[in-house]
């Protein structure tokens, strides 16, 4: 008979421990339904309208067909204006944020106070929705593309300062230290140390910003800041549904193309937002 000692220590089967449930997940499982119900109570939505409304919606959309392309010239000119607004504001905001980002990033800023002030200011700029900026600027400078550029620009600078300075802060501190130790000036550290490392992030964020600007510029027209949004508003208000459908198609086509162009970048970058 074999003794226990000869068999070696008794083997007990250990089941792998089930990973503990993150308490946060539990909260995230309970809280949303409660919030959902509370929100529904607050909104007091006329849910009875949902079904007849959806019926009307389909009839309305049906009425919009076929698209009326007779005013294509104005539509294209307005679409051009929208694109001009988007491109101009992206270009200007890139240049401005590029310069300011170095003052806002903690590892390149001349003083922490400057960095904090700039970052706070940037959050303020991007915290106010673009259309609200547009409403304020219309009062100040009057409607038109200039107003559109200003409002997109204001918001874009707020976003780009944040993400550019994040990209700069991700640069390895030892690289900068080594450069400073070898006697590089501030500008040299930036040009030779930071730019080569951060440029991919800079370029992809700029491309993304252009895409956001294009789709935001579309809606800007609604409050009167020029471009195709204004055109759409006019057609909808004048009940020219066939003309409106054509504008919808043009808008879809432009935003869709912009999205395709920046498809690759987006998913990777959006993860880093805030």
């Amino acid at each position, binding site marked *: 008979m074999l003794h226990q000692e000869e068999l070696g220590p008794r083997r007990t089967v250990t089941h792998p421990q089930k990973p503990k449930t993150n308490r*946060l*997940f539990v909260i*995230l499982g309970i809280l*949303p339904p409660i*919030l*959902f119900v*509370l*929100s*529904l109570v*607050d*909104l007091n*939505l*006329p849910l009875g309208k949902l079904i007849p*409304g*959806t019926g*009307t*919606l389909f009839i*309305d959309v049906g009425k919009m067909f076929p698209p009326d392309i007779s005013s294509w010239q104005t539509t294209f000119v307005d679409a051009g*204006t929208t*694109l*001009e*607004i988007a*491109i*101009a504001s*992206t270009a*200007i905001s890139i240049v401005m944020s590029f310069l300011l980002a170095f003052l806002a990033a903690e590892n390149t800023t001349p003083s922490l106070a400057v960095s904090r002030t700039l970052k706070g200011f940037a*959050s303020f700029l991007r*915290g*106010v*929705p673009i*259309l*609200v900026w547009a*409403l*304020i*600027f219309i*009062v*100040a*400078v009057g409607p*038109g*593309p*200039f107003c559109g*550029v*200003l409002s997109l620009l204001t918001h874009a600078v707020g976003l780009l300062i944040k993400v550019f300075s994040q990209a700069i802060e991700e640069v390895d501190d030892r690289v900068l230290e080594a450069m400073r130790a070898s006697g590089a000036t501030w500008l040299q550290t930036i040009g030779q140390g930071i730019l080569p490392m951060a440029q991919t992030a800079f370029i992809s964020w700029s491309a993304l910003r252009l895409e956001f600007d294009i*789709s*935001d510029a*579309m*809606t800007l027209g*609604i409050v009167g800041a020029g471009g195709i*949004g204004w055109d*759409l508003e006019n057609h*909808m208000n004048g009940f020219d549904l066939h003309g*409106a459908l054509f504008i*919808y198609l043009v*808008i*879809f086509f432009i*935003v*869709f193309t912009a999205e395709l162009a920046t498809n690759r970048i987006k*998913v990777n970058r*959006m993860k880093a937002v*805030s």
Partner: protein
Amino acid sequence: MYPLPQNHYRLLNRRRTVLTWTFIIVLVALSGFCIIATNFSPYNLYTGLGQIAWIVFDKFLPPHPSALGSIVKPALDTVAMSLVAAMAGSVVAAVLGFLAARPTAPHPVFRYVVRGFASLLRNIPALMWAFILVDAYGLGTMVGTLALFFSTVGWLVRAYAEVIEEIDQAKLEAIRASGASYLQVLGQGILPLVLPGFIAWSLYQVEMNLRTSSIIGMVGGGGLGFYIDNGIALFQFKDTAMAIVLVLVLILGSEFLTSSIRRRIL
């Protein structure tokens, strides 16, 4: 691999430099053209900024705290609209996301149809959806909620599908090899892996919805946007300023909240 002759590298390099520079020059020229076409000049900027400063400091500031009483309800509506749209949208998008992602799609046809549908929903801005919806559902928060719901579904289907496509296929293979059915693979293999990603994206969508819902009232969707739009039309700038401050607090608050939750679950 044969080593390329030395001058071949140089040629490749030169071609690349030429391409880069052409690209940069075209970009700069295009930007310059657009800046001029939109009347954006240093002079206009200077006078414009002066006017803006005057308007802001003279008319908008200081905000009237007394307006707060009438702003609370629109602000609650704004938050409620974005939450309802985000949650209902997440559920719908989760189902559609599974149909749109390569590893889980029952048939490739589903992928194309669902992805096309989602792209239609998200590439028409929410405010423009509201235009169509106003006629069918009448002015009010119903329109705002539905328009936000549309764009939420559009964005989240794409994001969820991408989260599903990113997961490690070997793990699913292992579960399948042990005899799991399609539903078991979904529940035991895919769901635990994608859940953090789903939650992170939904939180991000709450933030995006809050931004949109605070302006969607401008086209008849109810909430703070209606109050702001109305206030400016009626020249009640100081009351409007109070509402704008509230929008700012809501958006920055949600940005802070969602990003701190996201950091803990990812």
